[in-house]
């Protein structure tokens, strides 16, 4: 286990060190102490390493992640795991706005609540939120799965393309072109797998599925102002 004191050693040194790890690195376990809400912790990683952040983070923690597992033992500020490509990011506490935004792949697990715009423009990432998500979550979502074990705020899935949204609790309102859809066996299977990988104790049958009505794909005069 390598321990990195962010306060003493600085952010630039941290990210340079972590980004320099190769595919075959033997230094696979890293611990970051004294994060003190700093921005851009553990961004741009591209190696199969495990990074544990001992505390809460600021903006863009684990952004652009590839392969690595980043575990935040606290809450995360705006844009956690933004544009993640692969790997896993786990947040023990809450996540602020636009968690997992534009993510192409990998798994983001938020054990608390996520605030507004969770999964905005997601492009293949899987996001599992054990609590609630705020308004405009999965706005313009294109691909991937958003699983919400609690409630979803206003305008869920507004202008959604092809992502799948699973919500166990209440949905305050659905956004434009987002509708409830039939839960078929393959969806239950996907959901079971995601819940299991996230360590969530919930039954897939308790969820409802939402997705695109595909009415915004082509120009429709009724949608024009």
């Amino acid at each position: 286990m390598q321990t990195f004191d962010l306060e003493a050693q600085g952010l630039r040194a941290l990210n340079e060190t972590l980004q320099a790890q190769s595919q075959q690195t033997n230094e696979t376990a890293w611990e970051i102490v004294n994060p003190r809400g700093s921005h851009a912790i553990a961004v741009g990683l591209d190696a199969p390493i495990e990074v544990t952040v001992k505390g809460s983070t600021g903006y863009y923690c684990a952004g652009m992640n590839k392969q690595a597992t980043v575990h935040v033992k606290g809450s995360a500020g705006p844009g956690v795991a933004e544009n993640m490509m692969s790997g896993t990011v786990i947040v023990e506490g809450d996540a602020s706005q636009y968690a997992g935004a534009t993510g192409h792949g990998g798994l983001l697990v938020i054990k608390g609540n996520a605030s507004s715009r969770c999964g905005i423009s997601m492009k293949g990432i899987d996001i599992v939120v054990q609590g609630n998500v705020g308004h405009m979550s999965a706005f313009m979502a294109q691909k991937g799965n958003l699983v919400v074990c609690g409630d979803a705020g206003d305008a869920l899935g507004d202008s959604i393309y092809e992502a799948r949204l699973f919500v166990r609790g209440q949905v305050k309102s659905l956004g434009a072109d987002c509708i409830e859809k039939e839960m078929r066996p393959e969806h239950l299977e996907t959901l079971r797998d995601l819940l299991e990988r996230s360590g969530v104790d919930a039954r897939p049958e308790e969820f409802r599925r939402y997705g695109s009505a595909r009415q915004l794909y082509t120009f429709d005069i009724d949608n024009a102002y």
Partner: protein
Amino acid sequence: MCGIVGLFLKDKSLEPKLGEMLTDMLITMSDRGPDSAGIAVYGTDRDGFAKLTVQADDPARFAGLDDELSQVLGCDVTLRAKDTHAVIDLPEDKLAPAREALKELRPEARVMSAGEVIEIYKEVGLPGDVAKRFDIPHLQGTHGIGHTRMATESAVTTLGAHPFSTGPDQCLVHNGSLSNHNSLRRKLAREGVRVETENDTEVAAAYLTWKMQQGHSLGEALESGLEDLDGFYTFVVGTKDGFGVLRDPIACKPAVMAETDQYVAFGSEYRALVNLPGIEDARVWEPEPATVYFWKH
């Protein structure tokens, strides 16, 4: 951007450290807006007394002002000059006459705040420098609000800095930008409410003052602001014994809150809160959009 910090103390033993804690929080937020900074501190209540905080670009203009005011008002007046600001202590019933007298005696001086306990200090410059100029770390009090500005809607000037006074012992700070401040300024002008600068936040402050003059509580005024103020905002407001937070319905301007048995704290980012005592075990959360939060002593 802009950065906001706020601290509302529940534990009296922390009151001597209010200025020091707020300054530390505000300096942490410097990179959210380095052009001007300000702080409002709610100090000790002296029965029957009130204070005016005034600003003049040339501090030499404060010389002899206490004697001149004493003469006009017919009472004892004390003045503490701090750089470009001066705090004038006087009997409560002399507050309004003193403001009138000031217009004659020092027409160039601006009233930053008025009330029984509030003092507002604000200037162009980095939070650390502004705090030093006014010796903010040594201020004591029950609660306070700080702001560091990245100007978007109007010029970088002392009067464009936050906090803005919204009435006796009241103040407002703002992160965001209002898009209908010009039309609202015209509407307020028709109602006889004067706004001094081109600044959008001053319009919001004047709007809240106007609503409260019509008999609304601060909470009600903030609620009606959700209808009448168009734009982005995270507001933090202070009153003589209270402290409130409101975010617009879109809530893209950041906000983090923390509460323990000792305090309620606000920061634009969690970074601002990390040095507070017991923060590791505090309840930390993000305030909901379009929801008025308020704490009172």
